[in-house]
């Protein structure tokens, strides 16, 4: 633990230009598909037309006979190893229930075969020439259908492992208790209960999934892929394809957004196998329609929350029950469900009695996976709705009720220890928390006291304000690991080698800022290489809000080791013991003011005396996961004639510790809140009665554009996390949890109806108003 330093940071906390920024604005930075290799094969995948069917025969001979077709893959000629596509730490807490190509298909779009050909057009033609016979099976198209006695079994194969109860379609089951929740409700003065439902929604990074595989000059396979988890890709590929890990190199170039969907090994196996079979480069890019049909989504959930409070407003008992639809495969099924409780319930730690339980179930619908917020988004909707209902019953201002009950500095929650990432958690106390200040700022900026309960009218439009609070985490304690290597060059610059995975978040930049801060150099002296399994050290990747906190600490530790080496080399040059020396402005400086440039220090180490490479590697595994905190406030106008909801003003005040790069931290909040606004108001994947996605385009699936947005204010509240690198916590996910409960509560303030199903479309709002 470190206290806040007396001295101002030189590089940290500054809005530096992103280290990869110039290349990106100039259009020069190369994404996966921007590398054109000679004789590249184009790969297309044949998806299942049925939600649930057995493949009784497959004949690829006509497709193979088409001129220009190089290779056809199906279950008949590919490895049958069961694995998970979830790019998680090993052993993964997700079931091994997927095969490269299976003899059974479990959702519309499930993989049947793949063709590699000289052009995309030939590959597409060849897909049509593959003759497949299916035996259609009854499909399971909802959570309730999946749990019915005698329901069709989605995973009836004998060789899948890690499924809680395959015969009953239950992927995972979670049940944890603190105190006695039933007794707690009996002892409560007021009890409220609410059930909320969230929809199928997609990440829609503007760059769809894409991978390019090729053989290097040593005949090793290089997989250049748009991923959040390059090291997990390498491990899962080696296992799935049955090839030695050292024969695989995974490179993540620039990535056009991830948000969780690229924490999944979706395409790499197919492209890699084409290359292994043909010796040729293979490019596999999903179209936008394929992305909607066959990539990942958020887990739709039905979550029930019951709260009991004493007359003074203090929470006494909380119960949360989650039912999660994990689609045709169980990737992230257990952990997303567990996080629905573990990332929400500690927020209200005053309740002595708590119970979280639930199940994740298979259906024959599109496959959910990791999605920014990771279950917490689904949990905060009913939790923060119920808090509003409780406030009303107790006649306490909703802001006041939260102030009374939220976790504070120095406090803990038994949930931290009881419920972790699909297993027991890790106990921790909160060492930084400015949530009270966040609430205060948010309430003031939105004009809470002036506007709440006023229902001001403007023609058919009625105004209302709502709020919600939340926490998330900073990585997965005692599981996540990150490493960093720093080596010095004789011009006084440094190479920073990190496994951490910049998917647009700016992690290359903020991690370099941290190293530059320790080493006393401007950011321009840090050369960043990231996410290449051959050349950078291990890192679990970009997920679970881990990078700033976990990878950041590894970087700071590596920099501190390098600093010690530099000081030792400089000591004889300055005729001063290393202990009294420090690094400042690209030089080693002694207490008496004498100094020697870093270039000179490195030249001595490389060419002159006791020669060695100044370099160090450091690793970090966190023992806790300090939560960032967020207060959301929104003003909405509801059209009482059409049910349309306009969000006029949204304020988000966040405590993420020290913001290493304030504009990038704000950008994380702004982006996640706008994604959350779409999730709250317009975004919904609609499936037909046969399980087919009916709106697989950005025209029919509406994500927010620049014209669709409220005045959006993000406030970074001053805070310092003593266990964090330079005082930082992570901030990548938390914002996306805010809009749904905040807007739902604002709609209630405006028109007196509770929306319990997302998205809040005009139809749903109008129906709710008419029903009330």
């Amino acid at each position, binding site marked *: 633990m470190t206290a806040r330093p007396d001295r101002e940071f030189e590089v940290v906390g500054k809005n530096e230009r992103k280290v990869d920024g110039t290349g990106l604005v100039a259009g020069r930075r190369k994404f996966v598909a921007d590398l054109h290799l000679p004789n590249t094969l184009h790969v297309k995948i044949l998806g299942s037309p049925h939600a649930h069917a057995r493949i009784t025969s497959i004949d690829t001979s006509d497709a193979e006979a088409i001129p220009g077709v190089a290779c056809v893959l199906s279950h008949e000629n590919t490895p049958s190893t069961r694995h998970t596509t979830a790019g998680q730490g090993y052993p993964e807490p997700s079931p091994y229930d997927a095969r490269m190509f299976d003899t059974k298909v479990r959702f519309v779009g499930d993989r049947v075969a793949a063709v590699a050909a000289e052009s995309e057009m030939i590959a597409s033609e060849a897909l049509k020439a593959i003759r497949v016979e299916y035996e259609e099976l009854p499909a399971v198209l909802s959570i309730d259908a999946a749990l019915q006695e005698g329901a069709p079994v989605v995973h009836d194969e004998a060789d899948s492992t890690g499924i809680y109860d395959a015969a009953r379609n239950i992927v995972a089951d979670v049940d944890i208790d603190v105190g006695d929740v039933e007794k707690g409700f009996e002892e409560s003065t007021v009890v409220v209960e609410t059930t909320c439902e969230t929809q199928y929604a997609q990440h829609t990074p503007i760059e769809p999934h894409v991978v390019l595989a090729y053989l290097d000059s040593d005949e090793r396979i290089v997989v250049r892929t748009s991923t959040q988890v390059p090291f997990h890709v390498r491990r899962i590929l080696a296992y799935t394809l049955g090839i030695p890990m050292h024969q695989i190199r995974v490179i993540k170039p*620039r990535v056009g957004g991830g948000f969780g969907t690229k924490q999944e090994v979706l395409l790499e196996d197919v492209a890699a196998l084409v290359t292994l079979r043909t010796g040729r480069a293979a490019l596999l890019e999903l179209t936008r329609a394929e992305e909607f049909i066959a990539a990942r989504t958020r887990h739709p959930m039905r979550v029930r929350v019951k709260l009991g409070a004493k007359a003074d407003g203090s929470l006494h008992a909380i119960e949360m029950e989650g039912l999660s639809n994990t689609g045709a495969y169980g990737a992230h099924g257990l952990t997303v469900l567990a996080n629905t409780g573990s990332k929400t319930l500690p927020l209200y730690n005053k309740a002595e009695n708590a119970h979280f339980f639930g199940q994740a179930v298979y259906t024959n619908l599109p496959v959910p996976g990791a999605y920014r917020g990771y279950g917490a988004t689904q949990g905060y909707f009913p939790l923060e709705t119920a808090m509003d209902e409780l406030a009303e019953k107790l006649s306490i201002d909703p802001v006041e009720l939260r102030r009374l009950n939220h976790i504070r500095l120095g406090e803990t929650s038994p949930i931290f220890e009881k419920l972790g990432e699909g297993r027991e958690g890790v106990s921790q106390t909160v060492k930084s928390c400015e949530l009270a200040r966040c609430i205060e700022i948010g309430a003031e900026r939105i004009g809470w006291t002036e506007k709440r309960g006023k229902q001001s009218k403007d023609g058919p439009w009625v105004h209302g304000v709502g709020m919600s609070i939340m926490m998330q985490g900073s990585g997965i304690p005692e599981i996540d690991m990150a490493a960093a290597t720093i080596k010095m060059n004789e011009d006084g610059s440094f190479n920073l080698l990190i496994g951490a995975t910049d998917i647009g978040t700016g992690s290359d930049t903020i991690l370099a800022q941290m190293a530059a801060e320790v080493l006393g150099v401007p950011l321009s002296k840090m050369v960043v290489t990231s996410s290449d399994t051959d050349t950078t050290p291990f890192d679990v990747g970009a997920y679970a809000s881990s990078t700033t906190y976990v990878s950041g600490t590894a970087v700071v530790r590596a920099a501190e080791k390098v600093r010690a080496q530099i000081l030792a080399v400089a000591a004889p040059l300055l005729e001063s013991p290393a202990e009294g020396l420090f690094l400042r402005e690209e030089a080693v400086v002694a207490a008496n003011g004498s100094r020697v440039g870093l270039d000179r220090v490195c030249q001595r180490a490389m060419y002159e005396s006791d020669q060695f490479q100044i370099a160090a590697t450091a690793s970090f595994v966190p023992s806790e996961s300090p939560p960032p905190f967020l207060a959301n406030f929104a003003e909405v106008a509801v059209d009482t004639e059409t049910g349309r909801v306009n969000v006029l003003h949204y304020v988000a005040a966040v405590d993420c510790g020290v913001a290493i790069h304030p504009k990038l931290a704000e950008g994380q909040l702004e982006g996640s809140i706008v994604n959350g606004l779409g999730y709250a108001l317009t975004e919904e994947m609609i499936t037909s009665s046969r399980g087919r996605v009916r709106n697989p385009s950005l025209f029919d699936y509406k994500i927010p554009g620049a014209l669709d947005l409220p005045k959006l204010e993000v406030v970074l509240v001053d805070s310092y996390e003593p266990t964090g690198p330079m005082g930082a916590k992570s901030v990548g996910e938390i914002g996306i949890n805010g809009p749904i409960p905040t807007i739902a509560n604002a709609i209630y303030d405006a028109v007196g109806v509770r929306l319990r199903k997302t998205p809040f479309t005009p139809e749903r709002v109008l129906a709710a108003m008419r029903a009330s």
Partner: protein
Amino acid sequence: MTIMLRINGVSRTVDVAAGETLLEVLRREGFVGVKCGCGTGDCGACAVLLNGRAVNSCLTLAGKVDGAEILTVEGLASVERLHPLQEAFLDEGAVQCGYCTPGMLMSGIDLLTRNPNPSEDEIREAISGNLCRCTGYVKQVRAIQSAAERMRSGGDDCAT
């Protein structure tokens, strides 16, 4: 068929297949700064200037623009110097993953060429066809405002 295109100030003849889009032709010719996010005209990642106006190159048939003047993101900057709009995107933190950035820049250039002093609403209107999933647009709008100021005061050569 063979067509002639003037791309970023350099004329070249290119062979195009029937039905091939300008996006496909530009990427094949090496202008990979032009991105494909949907192929159906919904996301704007493929926007280029066609005879001075921003268009979705994925919806533009290459065969129909024989003789056209095309500006892609690669033509905005020289190696030594970025365009003020690119500078503003960097300074305002408007670039996250950068995949929508080329299209967003072209829409911004189109706007600033016609309207050197746009309001926030005019900026939002101008980039309403460019979807971004990372930024929430706040910093992109600010970057275009800032570029407008830079270009008005600096007299930079904005008329690319």
